[in-house]
């Protein structure tokens, strides 16, 4: 192992389960080669699923249908509330119902390319294959997708795709897909195959003899510490965008489940890959608690601009056409306002850095519909975007038909997550990770309408087929709370809660979280640099130290205590934040959602370095310094090219 200052270089990591041969046959080969569990034995095997979003909900329901005994956990009051529900746009599937040249191979190709060549080809191909079955499954469940007058499913083209492969349910696709999974889950609860634990938060992973065997959770209502055992543990706990404090994630989204598993030995892959969405409603003041995303479709008709002069404080209507800078149309004449998310986001940041931003704090750019209203008429614009305009007005109090919208980028999705093999199993045997919580399919950047696809692919079709290969060796030894490993895990949870409560300092949890978010947004946000990241690591360490010295958590652990819940989550965010900075620091190339100031072309575009960085960075928890394990990426079917949107 080599010590390289901020981290230690460890042995490479290899995906042992990845089949070879022609890419289109790999998934069926793996399914054939994986061991099966005798149907009669499934009843004797139990699986814990943490999280009830698209991935966790669909996995729990499907495992229940297969006959496993499932124990499902969520921190919300009902499994129906997981944050998948907030996804607006749609879900991709290579159905080619439009006969417009789409195919599994094209979806595969687009996803690998969109991920800036930092994803595994085998995984992405499987995702594209399974996408077709997802739509069938959801329609059978009664998900009310948009339909045409003939009664067939409607699709649209989304996120710059040249084929129309995105299925949608108005602006509420995530909600409808999640309710489908939730209903399937409730059906299995009624059937007795799933035991549901709502308002429970996983706080520790139990590992016995090298296998993930259970979790320690806290009953959020009574405060009781609760152990649950199983033959395998599935984490479907979502992404970690809330490390930035302000993000489009729900307030409760957190990294604790995956981070606790990471501390127990699971590798954390590509933590620095975060996706920033360009069209969010800007921050209105220090009280801001979250950011609201508005559908990207707004950029189809809205024109983005800022004043040409820095510090121009005139009202938008008073700025004459000649003094406006339609910067996306100027810099990217071919794609104009429809450039990919990361480019649009960075361009907005650049103009704001030049002092040309608009609105409170100068952190916003105009998204102007006046041309569209002139061209199409107000009624047509209303028909297309009415609900979005209403939402904007509800939040900002401004009428977008009269004054241009203000938008600003915000953290939206995290491509990184726990490292998993082709079977979605982490390096810890028995620990499976699915959905946004793993790192597997999106590479360095996720395409629009692909998150829902991946969550459901993992939960409905991939995990239920691969987990049997592991469970075939079970059931494993019966555990009780008296087992030394279990006792240790429980003690670590209670100790930590006691430590948090004992500080009794003079700063609130949120004040720390907000400050951490500022550091991350400033130095590990849209643009990262060597200097900034090193500074951030120092600041995070200082703040973390201060957190454990000055945080004030009122109340006790034996009650419903929302401050305590948040304190535990923020404590884990501190540790993750540092790893994100280390990962961003070590990756001196720019790729996808990771833009390094030092690695750009002469005209300011991201410059990838395939020679040095065509690998997955899988980090092992190392106490003092994290240990880097590289997984080489090979591209046999899609040859890496540099993106260009000029």
């Amino acid at each position, binding site marked *: 192992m080599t010590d390289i200052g901020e981290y230690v270089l460890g042995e490479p990591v290899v995906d042992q389960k990845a089949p070879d041969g022609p890419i289109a046959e790999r998934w069926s080969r793996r399914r054939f080669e994986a061991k099966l569990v005798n149907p009669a034995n499934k009843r004797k095997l139990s699986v814990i699923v943490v999280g009830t979003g698209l991935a966790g909900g669909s996995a729990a329901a499907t495992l229940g249908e297969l006959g496993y005994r499932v124990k499902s956990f969520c921190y919300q009051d009902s499994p129906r509330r997981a944050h998948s529900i907030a996804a607006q746009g749609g879900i991709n599937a290579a159905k080619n119902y439009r006969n417009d040249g789409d195919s599994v191979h094209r979806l595969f190709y687009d996803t690998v390319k969109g991920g800036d060549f930092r994803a595994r080809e085998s995984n992405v191909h499987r995702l594209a294959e399974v996408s077709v079955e997802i739509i069938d499954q959801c329609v059978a469940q009664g998900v009310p997708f948009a339909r045409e007058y003939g009664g067939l499913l409607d699709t649209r083209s989304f996120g710059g795709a040249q084929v129309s492969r995105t299925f949608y349910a108005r602006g509420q696709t995530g909600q409808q897909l999640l309710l489908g999974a939730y209903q399937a889950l409730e059906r299995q609860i009624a059937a007795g195959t799933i035991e549901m634990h709502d308002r429970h938060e996983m706080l520790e992973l139990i590992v016995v003899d090298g296998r993930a065997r259970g979790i320690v959770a806290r009953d959020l209502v009574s405060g009781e510490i609760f152990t649950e055992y199983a033959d395998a543990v599935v984490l479907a706990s979502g992404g970690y965008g809330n490390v930035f404090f302000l993000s489009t994630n729900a307030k409760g989204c957190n990294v604790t489940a995956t981070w606790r598993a990471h501390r127990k030995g699971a590798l954390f892959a590509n933590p620095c890959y975060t996706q920033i969405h360009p069209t969010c409603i800007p921050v209105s003041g220090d009280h801001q608690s979250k950011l609201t995303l508005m559908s990207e479709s707004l950029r189809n008709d809205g024109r983005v601009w800022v004043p040409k002069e820095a510090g121009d404080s005139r009202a938008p209507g008073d700025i004459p056409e000649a003094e406006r800078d339609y910067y996306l149309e100027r810099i990217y004449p071919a794609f104009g306002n429809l450039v990919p998310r990361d480019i649009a986001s960075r361009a907005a940041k650049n103009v704001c850095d030049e002092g040309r931003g608009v609105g409170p704090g100068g952190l916003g750019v105009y998204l102007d519909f006046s041309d569209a209203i002139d061209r199409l008429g107000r009624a047509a614009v209303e028909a297309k975007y009415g609900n979005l305009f209403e939402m904007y007005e509800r939040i900002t109090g401004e009428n977008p038909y009269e004054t241009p919208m203000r938008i600003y980028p915000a953290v939206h999705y995290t491509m990184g997550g726990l490292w998993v093999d082709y079977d979605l199993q982490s390096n810890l045997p028995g620990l499976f990770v699915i959905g946004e919580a793993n790192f597997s399919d999106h590479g360095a950047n996720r395409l629009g309408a692909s998150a829902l696809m991946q969550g459901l692919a993992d939960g409905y079709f991939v995990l239920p087929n691969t987990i049997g290969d592991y469970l075939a060796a079970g059931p494993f030894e019966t555990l009780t709370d008296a087992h030394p490993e279990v006792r240790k895990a429980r003690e670590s949870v209670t100790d930590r809660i006691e430590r948090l409560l004992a500080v009794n300092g003079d700063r609130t949890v949120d004040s720390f979280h907000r400050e951490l978010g500022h550091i991350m947004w400033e130095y590990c946000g849209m643009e990262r640099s060597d200097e900034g990241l090193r500074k951030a690591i120092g600041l995070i360490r200082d703040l973390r130290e201060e957190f454990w010295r000055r945080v004030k958590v009122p*109340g006790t652990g034996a009650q419903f205590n929302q401050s305590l819940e948040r304190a535990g989550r923020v404590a884990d965010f501190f540790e993750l934040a540092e790893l994100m900075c280390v990962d961003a620091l070590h990756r001196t190339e720019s790729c996808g959602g990771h833009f390094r100031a030092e690695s750009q072309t002469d005209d300011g575009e991201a410059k990838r370095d395939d020679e040095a960085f065509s690998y997955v960075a899988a980090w092992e928890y190392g106490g003092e310094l994290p240990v880097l394990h590289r997984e080489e990426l090979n591209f046999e079917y899609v040859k890496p090219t540099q993106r260009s949107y000029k």
Partner: protein
Amino acid sequence: MRLNLRIWRQAGIAHKGEMVEYRVDDVSPDMSFLEMLDVLNERLTLAGEDPIAFDHDCREGICGMCSLTIDGEPHGPQRSTTTCQLHMRHYRDGDTITVEPWRAKAFPVVKDLVVDRSAFDDIIASGGYISAPTGSAPDAHATPVAKADADAAFENAACIGCGACVAACPNGSAMLFTAAKVVHLNALPQGQPERRDRVLNMVDTMDDAGFGGCTLTGECATACPKGIPLESISTLNREYLKASLKRA
């Protein structure tokens, strides 16, 4: 601006609650209602008091977790808006605002403004689904769905399960919630095989959970942040009657 708040405080399920008065200064009109409570909670925490517990998650009006009765109205005075999307610009300096949890027999208070809505999950578990085990689905285009049916299904599927309908109802009835799911699934061809059992079982569960009967006051549809129409209740009744007459 300055606001006077009267907030329901209750330590737990078995405890008695009471209204407690608080004053919040420096409220910005751009704050959301929940952000205003965040500010109050920060202050309470630093003063060594117990912060106010309230349910919230996505804060963009879709998860259905937030659940405050504001001045007697579930989700507050603005139509088609969840609590988290209500902004303080609708209030004036010096206003007194009363904040309570959902008040319904079937939704016991867990703490302060947090209630237990698991009865809704039970209603769904008893029939609010289409049995389509993973892998068993035919091609998505095998069964076209008339656009009118698809639209009716969607309109009702928009329910976020927040429980405002129950809180608004003078009888604490869950008819609108149950109706939304029954109409969604029974409108679709995929939902036909389980059509009768679905409605019978869901209504049974609804009754067993302690919700009141419906007197069609229409308060539920007015309070619903997602605009589930009152007519859905009529459709639920029709489905229930038809199923009842056929089950003998």
